[in-house]
């Protein structure tokens, strides 16, 4: 099932990789290079994304901080956090931010696609 996904990462090559693989799966992809870009994209109006795919560590506003601001503003869009850390215990769930899952680098795309399908099917 096709979904509209907002992907944020400060690395242009990672963004290109994620965009390419997600588009090959048939998803519609919008990108942002940091947390501010995520906030701008969501406040710009127009069609809202079905899913956020945010890098945990980005300069200025991190993915976690951006998500915290969005949740405070009442945005309930499902979100996946991409982390360079090996597993969720390092990133540590900061609060209950309604995080739908953690994606570790290097990305296991089959598992990522499966999780996206779960989060956007409802």
């Amino acid at each position: 099932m096709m979904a509209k996904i907002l992907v944020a990462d400060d690395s242009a090559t990672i963004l290109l990789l994620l965009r390419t693989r997600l588009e090959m799966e048939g998803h519609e992809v919008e990108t942002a290079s940091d947390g501010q870009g995520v906030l701008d994209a969501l406040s710009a109006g127009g069609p809202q994304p079905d899913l956020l795919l945010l890098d945990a560590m980005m300069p200025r506003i991190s993915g976690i901080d951006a998500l915290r601001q969005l949740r405070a503003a009442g945005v309930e869009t499902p979100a996946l956090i991409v982390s360079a850390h090996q597993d969720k215990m390092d990133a540590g769930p900061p609060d209950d931010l309604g995080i739908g899952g953690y994606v570790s680098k290097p990305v296991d795309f089959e598992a990522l696609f499966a999780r996206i399908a779960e989060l956007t099917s409802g």
Partner: protein
Amino acid sequence: MRFRASRASRQAYSRRRFRLSQSLANRLTIGFAIGFAVLTGLAVIGVARFIQQRQDFEDATARSYQSEIQARNRLSQGRNPVAARATILAQQRRRQSLRDEISNQTRDTALLVGAGLIAGLTGAALLFNGLISSMRRPLEDLVAASERLAAGDLDARVEVGGLSETASLGRAFNEMAEELQRRTGERDQLDRMKDEFVLTASHELRSPLTSVQGFAELLMMERDNLTPEQAETVEVILDNSRHLVRLLNDLLDLARSDAGQLRIEPEPTEVETLVEDAERAMRSQIEARGQTLSEKIEPGLPTVSADRDRIRQIMVNLLTNANEYCPEGAAIRVKATRVDAEVEIAVIDDGPGIPRDQLAHIFERFSRGDAGLTQRVGGTGLGLAISKSLVELHGGTIAAQSTPGEGSTFGFRLPAIGSPNPTEADRSGAQA
């Protein structure tokens, strides 16, 4: 400069030695000399007095005998017999009194020398007792401080004082403790820096690696449009990036283990689930080398306390070792059995085995099999060290057995937490 420094330290050392010989040794020497002089004096005086008294006694006795003989001569000649008889009697009495006198004098001399000896020995005993007790307190303090230091209390110090030996011992101890504390602080700081470095490096390397692996996978998806040489090149890139990821993960696990931050989330788990997880992950890789994988799970095993992901990591590691170190066609078996209150899961192969000297170090970091095989085998040399840490975090143990030429067995035990089978539960209850 170095020579001068070492000469200065030699001089300081010999000064210290000189001071050492001056204090305790000199006190002992002086004590011995005084004691020896007093005792010798007493003995000389006693012996001289004894000889003098004996001499006097013998002289007086001889004179007495002479007088008696003269009186007996006069008696035999009939001259003044009454006076002669009186003299003989008087001389006999005199000798008796002389004998009594010498025996009294001998006893007095012996008493004098004996009393002197006792006084001298008592004095010596008091001197030694004084020396010993002046050393005992500082030594006891040193022992107590050493024990505290050994137990990890790096603030342990002693009060410097008493004899010069115990004072310099105390100073040396305090300097040592100071140095130990300084170095331990430095080492702890270095350890923290190392852990931080590994975490940061692992983090920073992971992003570029994600790109390398991700784009190589993209290329492989276009395999049909690549020449065979290009496809093979991309395979090499993929293999190596996967190897780098494994290495990074292992290094991260080790750094966490060292920092005491390696954590597990154990849950009651069926042994079958753990074995199936591992076999699912490894079966195709094992069969690709023409090897067989079979399992034998004892019926009615209790559930175990296990972090499923971590146990899979351990078993994949053991199975990967068996897969890579055994030749094609080898038989690899997974066997799960109950051992007392634990469940043992073993990976058994009929491969070349491990020489005894390597087996002893098999769970140490970067310990790997023989060099020829290692060239071909792609492991990181960290897998077994990490597996051991992980098993121990579960409250279990891991062990390796091997007979060269016949095969190897790597088995780990996990604590059982329950039993699906009531008779099993009864048996474990009866054992407990």
